[in-house]
């Protein structure tokens, strides 16, 4: 029964206008974002700029981190991710004074002086992308700096920039030729070029896929109610698991097909380009990279839309999930990495292979979390469905009765 239901659900998706709108928007969005992403050359000595890399230099880390702290103190707005999700922290006047004292201890200058210096840097570096620095006090050791940042963390709370693991992976500096060459070699050998390209594809696709599947999920979950077929389907012998899981999987597969097809089509020119550059490209990157990167996201977005729509019998989930996607996007401290538990995993660059491999475990943890979350949501949807089937009411129906 399950296989037949699955195929019939796939056919239903193919008859849905919402699905075709999804396909058109997805393809247009991706092709418009991915065009022109082909500037890839082997670095040569003598270039003036080789791109940026995360520094391992203690002095630069301290200067960059303190500059970041000066800016956040100035706004009294600290970005944190206590449980992986964005949270803005505002300190009390007393706490701000404590942080200013820490800054003074590390730099030997008052906050007012530091703020003025920062403003001067801003005026001088009017072109975007400039990295700000605050010179540290002479004799400040890295251990003292670490201790000072721990004090900041105590005040600001968990998940701030001032945690050791965060600031040590966030301060960027221009690359040298040797670094650029090492990065390019990693891109060629470890990524086979196509995997790096697919990560960039996943970055753009992940943005739009945090929203579009919501509409397909809501449309499917409300279709029974709109068509007045709930009662007759409830009375059939098929179990809630068979009905919900076949619907879920059918929608998941139908949403994924255009994603993988687009990935394949966009990957092919890069695959042939890799060959011409003497690089062994990964022909299966269009499956493996989006499979790990995007599939858990699509699964979660779809499962949550199924669950909330089945639970409420309304379209409320659209507003809720769009807000979730938006928060995930604006909360990223960087467009390359900073996965945390964000729904949308960003990698807005072609390359930085070495950084990727250093963060791969974090990405796997993030995607594993969303895979499990999706599974939990599907199980909950089945339970809600079975409850409704035995005379349970959706939240919307309960509220309507309460209103009367």
């Amino acid at each position: 029964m399950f296989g037949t239901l699955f195929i019939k659900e796939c056919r239903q998706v193919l008859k849905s206008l919402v699905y075709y709108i999804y396909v058109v928007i997805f393809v247009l969005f991706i092709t418009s974002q991915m065009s022109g992403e082909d500037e890839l050359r082997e670095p040569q000595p003598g270039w003036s700029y080789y791109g940026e890399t995360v520094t391992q230099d203690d002095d630069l880390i301290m200067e960059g981190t303190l500059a970041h702290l000066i800016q956040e103190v100035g706004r009294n707005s600290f970005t944190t991710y206590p449980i992986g999700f964005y949270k803005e922290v505002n300190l009390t006047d007393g706490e701000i004074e404590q942080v200013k004292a820490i800054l003074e201890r590390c730099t030997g200058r008052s906050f007012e002086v530091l703020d003025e210096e920062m403003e001067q840097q801003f005026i001088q570096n009017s072109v975007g992308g400039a990295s700000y620095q605050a010179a540290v006090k002479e004799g400040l050791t890295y251990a003292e700096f670490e201790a000072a940042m721990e004090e900041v963390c105590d005040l600001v709370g968990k998940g701030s920039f001032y945690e050791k693991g965060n600031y040590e992976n966030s301060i960027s500096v221009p690359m040298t030729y040797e670094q650029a060459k090492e990065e390019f070699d990693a891109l060629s050998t470890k990524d086979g070029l196509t995997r790096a390209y697919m990560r960039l594809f996943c970055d753009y696709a992940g943005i739009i896929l945090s929203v579009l599947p919501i509409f397909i999920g809501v449309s499917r979950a409300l279709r029974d109610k709109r068509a007045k077929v709930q009662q007759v389907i409830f009375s059939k012998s098929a179990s809630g698991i068979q009905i919900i899981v076949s619907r879920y999987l059918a929608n998941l597969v139908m949403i994924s097909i255009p994603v993988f097809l687009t990935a394949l089509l966009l990957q092919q020119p890069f695959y042939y380009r890799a060959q011409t550059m003497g690089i062994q490209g990964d022909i299966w990157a269009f499956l493996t990279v989006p499979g790990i990167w995007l599939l858990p996201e699509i699964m979660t977005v779809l499962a949550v839309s199924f669950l909330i729509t089945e639970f409420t019998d309304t379209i409320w989930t659209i507003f809720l999930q769009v807000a979730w996607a938006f928060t995930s996007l604006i909360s990223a401290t960087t467009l390359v990495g900073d996965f945390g538990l964000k729904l949308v995993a960003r990698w807005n660059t072609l390359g930085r292979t070495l950084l990727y491999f250093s963060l791969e475990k974090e990405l796997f943890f993030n995607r594993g979390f969303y895979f499990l979350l999706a599974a939990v949501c599907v199980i909950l949807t089945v339970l809600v469905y079975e409850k409704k089937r035995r005379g349970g009411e959706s939240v919307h129906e309960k509220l309507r009765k309460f209103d009367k």
Partner: protein
Amino acid sequence: MEMSIEIRDLTKNYGKKQALSKVDLTISQGMFGLLGPNGAGKTTLMKILTTLLKKTEGEVTICGVPVEKNRQIRDMTGYLPQDFSMYGNMSVYEALDYLAVLSGMSKSERKSKVPEMLEKVNLLEKQKIKVKSMSGGMIRRLGIAQAIIHDPKVIIVDEPTAGLDPEERVRFRNLLCEIAKDRIVLLSTHIVGDIEATCENIAVLNQGKICFKGKVTELLSMVEGKVYSAEIAAVELEKVKEKYMVTGILVTGSTANIKIIADEQPFSQARQVQPDVEDAYMYLMHKEK
């Protein structure tokens, strides 16, 4: 296995509101009519029998199986809900095939049964048209096809003829009688004519309680000798309606032919007539008030 539905002391509460109160009923093979005004609790009873609602108290068994055994009950019942419909973008064939899958039928079973059922409900020639293009009568016929396709022992139909034109209504009633030959068909309706034309055994439900159960002839015997017909002046109509239970009025110019239920002859020109089920039902409802 016994072919009957046994309902004992069935009570259903929605919060503080009691929809069914201590309902006792035995329904045997053949057509059984459940009559009652809107809001009497008929749909609640149907939904309990089809596992769509949990009972509050009492016992219900269908062919010996307690109604709590959802899967078994769903296997042995076919349900045509009051407002049956299907996905508009499906063809008649696809819709029936989809519902047959949900009833657990294999591909080979569906291949033979779907056309057979469509033929039975006279929709075979229309199998390719979309559900959204079907008339109310056609949708109802598709509804009965999906209710019987898995060959259930019990078929429960809730207000199946509401909104149908007279021809469709007769055709639908005949179809129900045909399929009731070797099954239990429970027909719930507030349309007395449907019951009169199809059922021998009936129950009348009012405000969640059974106020009559038995054969149609027994219901009729309650008003035997109490139904009168008379021709009166149209201007007297209001006065007569205040005094007696009037079950039929036909106004022709200045005169009105009326049908009255009364324990004794209401006036000299009134003559006793043969009661029909509608008279008996009205009498029963009046007594209940």
